[in-house]
């Protein structure tokens, strides 16, 4: 076994000022509080809610994945410091939902490893991880849903008066740092909230070497206007604009980078009750997402997605010990993809002549058996999606909660190949109905049981049958993929992804200072959608004829993903010094029923962390061990194991 050791020492200085000119100002007793994320979570059955300030204190980076990667079973799929999408219990990409409030985020981070998540985690007030039955309210995601909640998602107006939170930090490795300003002013029945965030970092250094093109820049502005219409109704309007620019550290000789922008506008109506229904939240959102992929300054790629969403959700009582959450949502989105060297500043309609459609593609199909294309990788697509979900919860005394949730998702998917170069259109003799409009329905069901065995011991278990509609990219993509330097072929006839998911979590509190947590999961996929290398009869990987890159085929197969995680936590206070020691172990395996392993699964890993709090000073030392990849898929490159030692210290200054 070859093990590399990297030593990374980062020092952060965090200065936070917070003042509130509220109606009443109280001087509080000085207390020493720990900033451990494990201390701050608000754990209820199947969901955990985290205060973003606390996550930020603990995070090693600025991505959503960085913020959550200390959670048991959560990893960050990173592609440089700008990109970090959370993976949950081996589920990644389209199997993990990221939502703002209830609306699934309009970005393309699930599509590709180099696409950043279309939000800055620091901008959220709180971040929730929802698993089990409750997650079905937002869609069908085997890895659950991560919800980021902003001021607009609070049913109440902020406390009257003016408040201002500012935060400035710098990073010793990359220089620059982050700035955030969050200010709220509330009076009478109105409120204004303005939230600004900026993060900038140059390329970072690893073992003394600069990692080229690992620089990142992000800026986001979020504003919310609130109006308390009546005692029961509050309406909040919001607008958000975000820019990201980041380098892609890859093997190309010229600089590769991504320039991303997103605008969102929406309105949320909170109603305490309407008749017998309670906590009614109705939201409309319009968002416009776009990013450019540049190489050597040339605009080689562009992705854009426009999305509108209208949703409503509410709670209602069925019986004395039974209540329910209902949610319905319509989402419409239009996706455009351009990939042509130097020609992707604007989307263009391709030229149409009397030439045979798809002639070049057909020639390759006849010559190689694969319908290779060197044009735009997919047609423009439009989706209309309707979701309806119900989660019924029944309480048996104080110790048991039973949940039964189901959802149904209907989708109309249209493809318009007007952007596709004529000669690279799908030829009718290869697939005659390739561009035809599809309608499809997916239904999921989940059963959950939370039980408190004693004051010290809780368990929660869920069993779900999930169906996920394949994304338009999984269906249509046919072309080169920069991030993985591979040629990817979608499958237009992919069936829905189906799985039976079993999760069980146990939490045991040995005493006030010492607690344990164990999770076990077993996901049995009847149809697991993934990319598999294409090989010839001798098992040799096939390379595409244009770039000699390995060819990966999107396919659905029977597979199993299972694993477990253990977390041990011990707290100790010595005067004004508070210590927390946390140890985590994660084991995960993904197997194909036909034999072999699922590619790109996280290797076994362990994390040991010691946190120290003294007045405003928070320091932590983290040692992370990652095993070599033992369960390597056919034709997948094995990775060596490594260990990482990280030290951060932050000073928190707060004034009232």
């Amino acid at each position, binding site marked *: 076994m070859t093990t590399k050791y990297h030593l990374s020492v980062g020092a952060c200085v965090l200065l936070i000022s917070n003042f509130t000119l509220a109606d009443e100002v109280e001087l509080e007793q000085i207390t020493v509080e720990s900033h451990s994320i494990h201390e701050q979570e608000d754990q209820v059955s199947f969901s955990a809610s985290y205060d973003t300030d606390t996550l930020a204190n603990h995070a090693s980076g600025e991505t959503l994945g960085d913020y959550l990667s200390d959670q048991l079973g959560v990893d960050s799929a990173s592609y440089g410091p700008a990109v970090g999408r959370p993976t949950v219990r081996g589920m990644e990409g389209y199997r993990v939902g990221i939502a703002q409030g209830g609306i699934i985020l309009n970005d393309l981070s699930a599509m590709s490893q180099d696409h950043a998540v279309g939000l800055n985690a620091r901008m959220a007030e709180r971040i929730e991880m929802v698993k089990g039955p409750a997650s079905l309210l937002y869609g069908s995601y085997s890895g659950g849903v991560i919800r980021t909640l902003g001021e607009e998602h609070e049913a109440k107006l902020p406390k009257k008066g003016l408040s201002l939170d500012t935060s400035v930090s710098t990073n010793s490795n990359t220089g620059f740092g982050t700035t955030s300003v969050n200010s709220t002013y509330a009076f009478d029945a109105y409120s204004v909230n303005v939230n600004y965030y900026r993060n900038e970092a140059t390329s970072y250094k690893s073992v003394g070497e600069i990692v080229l093109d690992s620089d990142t820049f992000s800026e986001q502005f979020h504003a919310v206007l609130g109006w308390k219409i009546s005692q029961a109704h509050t309406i909040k309007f919001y607008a958000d604009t975000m820019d990201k620019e980041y380098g892609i550290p890859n093997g190309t*000789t010229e600089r590769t980078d991504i320039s991303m922008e997103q605008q969102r506008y929406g309105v949320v109506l909170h109603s305490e009750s309407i008749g017998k229904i309670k906590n009614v939240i109705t939201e409309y959102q319009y968002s416009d997402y776009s990013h450019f992929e540049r190489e050597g300054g040339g605009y080689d790629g562009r992705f854009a997605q426009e999305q509108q969403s209208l949703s409503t959700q509410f709670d209602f009582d069925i019986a004395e010990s039974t209540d329910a959450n209902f949610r319905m949502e319509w989402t419409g989105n239009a996706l455009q993809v351009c990939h*042509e060297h130097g020609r992707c500043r604007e989307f263009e309609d391709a030229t149409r*002549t009397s030439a045979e459609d798809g002639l070049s593609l057909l*020639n*390759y199909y006849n010559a*190689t058996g694969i319908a290779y294309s060197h044009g735009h990788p997919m047609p423009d697509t439009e989706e209309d999606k309707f979701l309806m979900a119900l989660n019924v919860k029944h309480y048996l005394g104080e110790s048991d909660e039973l949940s039964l949730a189901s959802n149904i998702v209907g989708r109309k998917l249209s493809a318009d190949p007007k952007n596709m170069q004529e000669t690279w259109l799908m030829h009718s003799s290869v697939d005659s109905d390739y561009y035809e409009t599809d309608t499809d329905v997916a239904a999921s069901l989940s059963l959950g049981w939370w039980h408190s065995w004693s004051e010290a011991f809780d368990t929660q278990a869920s069993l779900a049958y999930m169906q996920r509609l394949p994304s338009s990219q999984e269906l249509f993509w046919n072309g080169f993929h920069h991030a993985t330097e591979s040629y990817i072929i979608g499958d237009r006839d992919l069936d829905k992804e189906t799985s039976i998911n079993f999760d069980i979590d146990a939490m045991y509190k040995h005493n006030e200072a010492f607690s344990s947590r164990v999770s076990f999961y077993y996901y049995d996929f009847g149809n697991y959608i993934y990319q598999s290398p294409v090989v010839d009869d001798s098992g040799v990987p096939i390379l595409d004829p244009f*770039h*000699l890159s390995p060819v990966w085929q999107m396919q659905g197969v029977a597979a199993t993903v299972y694993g477990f995680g253990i977390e041990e936590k011990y707290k100790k206070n010595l005067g004004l010094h508070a210590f927390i020691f946390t140890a985590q172990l994660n084991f995960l395996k993904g197997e194909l029923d036909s034999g072999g392993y699922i590619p790109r699964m996280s290797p076994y890993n362990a994390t040991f962390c010691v946190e120290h709090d003294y007045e405003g000073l928070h320091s932590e030392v983290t040692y992370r061990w990652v095993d070599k990849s033992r369960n390597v898929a056919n034709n997948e490159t094995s990775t060596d194991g490594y260990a990482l030692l990280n030290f951060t210290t932050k000073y928190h200054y707060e004034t009232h």
Partner: protein
Amino acid sequence: MKKIWIAGAVIAVAMMTGCGSSSNNDSGNNDGGTAIDLPDGKTLIFFDNASSEQYLYNTDTESYDDMNVAGENYDMTGKNAKLVMFDEKIVMIDEHFDITDANLSYEDMYYLGHFHEENSVPVFAAHNADEFDPAVASDAKLATIQSLNKHLIEQNEIKEEITEALPSGETLCNFFVFGHDEEATPHIALSTSGKVYVFEDGQDGLESSQAVFALDGVTECKENESSIVQEDEHGVIIFVAQSQKLYLADSHGEDFHVHSTLDVNRFLPTGFTPTIFTGIGEGEEHDHDH
């Protein structure tokens, strides 16, 4: 904050530049500052056989110049011609000349152009056809005409070989052959229907070496309305008048394919619709990571 700066910059630039373009029709850059994805180090000459307009485009400076300057040897005003690339020289010859009829004489050509460097800047210079009149021409110029004829005869032989290799129903429109000494010498053949064939020498003559691909937007190709010139050691630039596009087709150890496409009206004067083009210069290799 960045947005505010950008907005300010946009307003400032708009105020400084005013509305509309100030470029005239003699020289300029027609792409509003957008980088043109053509290989550096190239000088391209575009000629419209219908209007006799002739423009020179420099890929380094991304600017064009009108070549029809009265009094210059290379002024083609009122003339019709076709371009021949030969030994790093550009020869503008009579549009009806056919090497199978007779050898080329000075009367069949208009000018022979080449580049020489002045202060590291390539400068176009041309010799008028009259300079190649055997009555007055130097031995070197006569040798040039002889070499040119040899080149045209060789090209015609290759043309016949490629014509034979094309599948039935296909007619050769234009072609280009990389080097002569290499074992696998790619022959790029463009058919009159706009398809690109790649042949290499095989045991029984030329054999197709990869799948045939089409040029987007092309249904009809004519020899005197198309051109293929070498981009670098891996690729060619194809021009077809019907689509008014340049196709950069190259191979990086694999199949030749259209790497990128460029509308000529992005960098040439508005309204100019060339029928043929040629280019000289080393040409830097563009990035082959894609």
